[in-house]
């Protein structure tokens, strides 16, 4: 997700005034950090629009993205998901739940040694593919895993 962002992360390499000011101790790094929330991407309905909104249209299927997710979610409100990207230079990992009203669930930008790995818990309204999108070296890659969601009876 790179449109309309102005963060320390992006300017870290360059000699921007923010970076210089931070380096000079005039402002603490935490103070300049503000990630902009990509409203358009989070409101996109359907996977093709969501992929377009995050600049990953035409992402290539990749076997180097491992999605660890249950076959059947015990609780659709708390579904543990882990994504490991073995693609060199992974700079972002996105999670989409294809059948959720707005598929894009999370975007993780990674830098300064953060590995191509994220773990979180998500809500799924119904059985759906969970799609991971990885950005690396200026290109996009994707993989899916189906997670079934049922509604339990008595609960035991």
């Amino acid at each position, binding site marked *: *997700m790179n449109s309309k962002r102005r*963060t*320390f*992360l992006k300017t*870290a390499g360059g000699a921007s005034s923010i970076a210089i000011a931070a380096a000079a101790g005039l402002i603490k*790094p*935490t103070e300049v*950090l*503000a*990630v*902009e*929330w*990509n409203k358009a991407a*989070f409101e996109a309905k359907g996977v093709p629009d969501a992929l377009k909104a995050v600049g990953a249209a035409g992402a290539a299927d990749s076997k180097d993205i491992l999605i660890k997710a249950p076959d059947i979610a015990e609780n659709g*409100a*708390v*579904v*543990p998901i*882990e994504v490991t990207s073995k693609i060199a230079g992974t700079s972002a990992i996105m999670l989409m*739940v294809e059948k*959720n*009203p*707005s598929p*894009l*669930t*999370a*975007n*993780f*930008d*990674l*830098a*300064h*040694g*953060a*590995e191509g*790995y*994220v*773990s*979180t*818990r*998500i*809500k*799924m309204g119904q059985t759906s593919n969970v799609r991971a999108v990885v950005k690396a070296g200026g290109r996009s890659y994707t993989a899916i895993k189906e997670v079934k969601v049922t509604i339990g009876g008595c609960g035991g």
Partner: protein
Amino acid sequence: MAEPMKIRATMEGDAANIKVLMNHVMETGQRKDAKTGQVVPAHFIQTVIAQMNGKPVLEAQWSQAVSKNPFLGFKVKGAKAGDKVNVSWVDNHGDKNSADAVVA
């Protein structure tokens, strides 16, 4: 408001394994209050920043589909014991929270 988040940071090989449990209702804005029948407005963490020794290592943008009391796990290569971790979040109301930890 929000209770403090918990951070566990340990070394695993040459990478720091960071696990965070945040406290947030992560209301989707689609749920109806059982008593009033009114839709409960969306209230969820939108952005998260994790820093290691002052350098941002992870920046996340979330939707309301991240689970209540969100969990976040990530790994940072080249970290070492004693490194300082900070995780901060901002939600769609502009509420914030932040916590620090030291890599064990």
